[in-house]
């Protein structure tokens, strides 16, 4: 029951959905189209597990006065406020409409935090390129040159640097060439490889060869 039932479920479900791609006949086509919804519903139920874990870990920190415990209070408070406001004080299912309390919190707390975290990438991209783009060997040099040309080719400085060359042959055009040809080739090789890797992983899962995530007895 513990070990074999899950393996059978995985195999049967896997084969059904594999075939459903080729069969536009009910009930397989209906199943095919509803698959993502079913999975989403399971995920929506299980989010409760994660959230309870989050609360438990942080309550634990507070009660045992572990390092940085006051911040755990902030975390729990943030979670409770957002959840209660969203479930009970924000126009029900239209909770994201303009003017709801939930929307206010989203716009003024969640969104600034999220977009700032995103924008920090600008700094990290600079420090990563300083460190990584050094002409140590042939591979690193190609990495460096491609990045450098594309980076410059897409802003006006690139234009100023190469304005002595007739239009159509400037830095921007070299950047376009790199993007259109060698870059496309590399992307395709990676993509085709991934398709094969996914296929092989799928088969291993369906055959029950990869099943660590199902645990033991």
């Amino acid at each position, binding site marked *: 029951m513990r070990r074999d039932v899950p393996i059978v479920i995985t195999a049967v479900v896997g084969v059904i959905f594999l075939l459903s791609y080729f069969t536009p006949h009910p009930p397989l086509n209906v199943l095919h189209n509803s698959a993502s919804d079913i999975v989403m519903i399971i995920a929506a139920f299980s989010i409760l597990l994660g959230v309870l874990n989050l609360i438990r870990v942080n309550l634990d920190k507070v009660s045992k006065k572990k390092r940085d415990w006051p911040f755990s209070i902030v975390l729990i408070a943030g979670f409770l406020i957002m959840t209660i406001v*969203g479930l009970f004080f924000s126009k029900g299912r239209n909770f994201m409409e303009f003017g709801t309390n939930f929307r206010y919190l989203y716009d003024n707390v969640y969104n600034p935090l999220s977009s700032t975290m995103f*924008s920090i990438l600008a700094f990290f991209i600079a420090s990563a390129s300083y460190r990584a783009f050094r002409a140590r060997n042939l591979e690193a040099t190609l990495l460096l040159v491609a990045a450098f040309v594309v980076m410059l080719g897409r802003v006006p400085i690139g234009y100023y640097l190469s304005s002595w060359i007739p239009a159509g042959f400037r830095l921007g055009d070299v950047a376009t*060439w790199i993007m259109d040809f060698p870059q496309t080739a590399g992307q395709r090789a*990676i993509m085709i490889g991934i398709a094969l890797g996914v296929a092989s992983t*799928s088969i291993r899962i369906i055959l029950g060869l990869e099943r660590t995530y199902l645990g033991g007895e």
Partner: protein
Amino acid sequence: MSELFGLWLGALLTLGIFSFLYKDNPFYKFCEALFVGVSAGYYLVTSYWQIIVVKMIDVLQVGFDKMMVLGYFDFQNWLPVLGGIFGILMLLRLLPSIGWISRWSLALVVGTTAGLYFTAYLASNGMIPIKETIVPLELTYPKLFLAHTGSFLKDIPATIWCNFLNVLYTYGNWVVTLGTFCGLIYFFFSKEHKGVFGGVAKIGILFLMVTFGASFGYTVMSRMSLLIGRVDYLGTAFGEFFKLLK
């Protein structure tokens, strides 16, 4: 007023996150904890309203109505029950003695994924790139031009450069076919990368490096624009603040 308060609150939190760039500090820890808590709440609320309510309860309601009013059973409307049942099985994790039943839900999800991804990836990542790679290759000589302004001697470097780029563009498709070929050779697992095979695989790596460099450089622009947007937001918030002080 609440709008202005919101703007400043947002600006303060923005600064809190930025402070991490200097070093980890209590201000950042506060923002981080708040962010984790608020976003976990956000996802809980969204999953409830947009998935449990819209994708399950509403759909079942329609199925129920169809059965009651029209008297026919629509399979499609009852499928969410499957999600509900396995979702509840997942929650049995909370009871240690029968927690292992949740593996059935995991098995269902993993099986679905394995089945759907096999064909989806084979189509979008396998077949389509191959179809796009099959293009006629240029077999003629490139047209070379002597000078772009008429006087060859006046602009030798420019002319050489133009011809160089012209050749690159003319034989672009060769580069794509060759690069895809060598890149795929690199991914071979069951053959040692030695001799000619190893050489081709090496060229494959070089192509991958150009690819990585180019897409890195390509992304810099959009990341910078995000930062510009953020900094401008901070500027607006401070502007409002100083206006108030005056």
